[in-house]
């Protein structure tokens, strides 16, 4: 029975103590909301229990649970996508027609007043950025956070969210343009 010895087994009674924090961290960097992350972790454990009999012992317990959580996160993305998808389409920084691709007036960068002073790291600055990020459409905020704050690889984000690289860069560009404008109005020039 040497084969059985290398097989992984499940021990649901120890799941929470062993994996809850790990899974929570995994979820929270992806959804950026503690409550949603908590729900996803709970759902993962439930789903794990329900399908425990299908566990073949090929992967380690944690890997198996992460795979379940991953699907839960993707389901969550799909949900916010379909909710917010329509609102995003008309969000456009540049005029159509003759001026297509050039700056519309209100988006043209303004010179920042004494920006050297304003770059000093303070809690206020951090709060202002958070507020600006929260104003972004949910999908933009998500992609921006994953790429810029969590520093995920482009490829990884594309795979998880099922978007192309050029799609990602358009989203990043729109997010950064909107953030720049928001920071200009609320921080640098206010």
């Amino acid at each position, binding site marked *: 029975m040497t084969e059985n010895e290398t097989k992984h087994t499940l021990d649901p009674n120890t799941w929470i103590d062993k994996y809850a924090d790990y899974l929570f*961290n995994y979820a929270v960097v992806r959804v950026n909301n503690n409550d949603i992350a908590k729900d996803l*972790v709970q759902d993962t454990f*439930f789903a794990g229990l329900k399908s425990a009999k299908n566990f073949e012992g090929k992967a380690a317990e944690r890997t198996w649970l992460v795979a379940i959580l991953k699907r839960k996160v993707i389901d969550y993305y799909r949900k916010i996508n379909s909710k917010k998808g329509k609102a995003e389409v008309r969000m456009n920084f540049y005029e159509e027609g003759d001026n297509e691709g050039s700056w519309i007036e209100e988006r043209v960068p303004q010179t920042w007043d004494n920006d050297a002073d304003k770059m000093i790291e303070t809690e206020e600055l951090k709060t202002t950025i958070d507020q600006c990020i929260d104003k972004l459409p949910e999908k933009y905020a998500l992609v921006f956070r994953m790429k810029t*704050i969590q520093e995920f690889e482009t490829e990884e984000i594309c795979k998880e969210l099922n978007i192309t690289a050029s799609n990602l*860069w358009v989203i990043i560009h729109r997010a*950064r343009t909107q953030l*720049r404008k928001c920071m200009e109005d609320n921080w640098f020039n206010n």
Partner: protein
Amino acid sequence: MAKFIISCDEATTICDKSQYGEATFFEKIKLNFHFLICKVCGLYSKQNAKMTNVYKMKANDCKKENRCLSTEEKEHLKKELQKIEA
């Protein structure tokens, strides 16, 4: 030559990409060519670098943070899980 002429939209998209070190060589050439004829994008680029510093600061903060569930939350989870098992 026409290949080198890009819109402000494209220029600033490349500019954003280069903030992550992921713009290609050809894209960088196009971008710098665009800067010669467009001051607005030049300013955008300068400010963009500053914004990148701000974001990096946020990223560092985020790394320091180790998020855990509280003991109560875990106890609650255990109870919920036991309900299912029963």
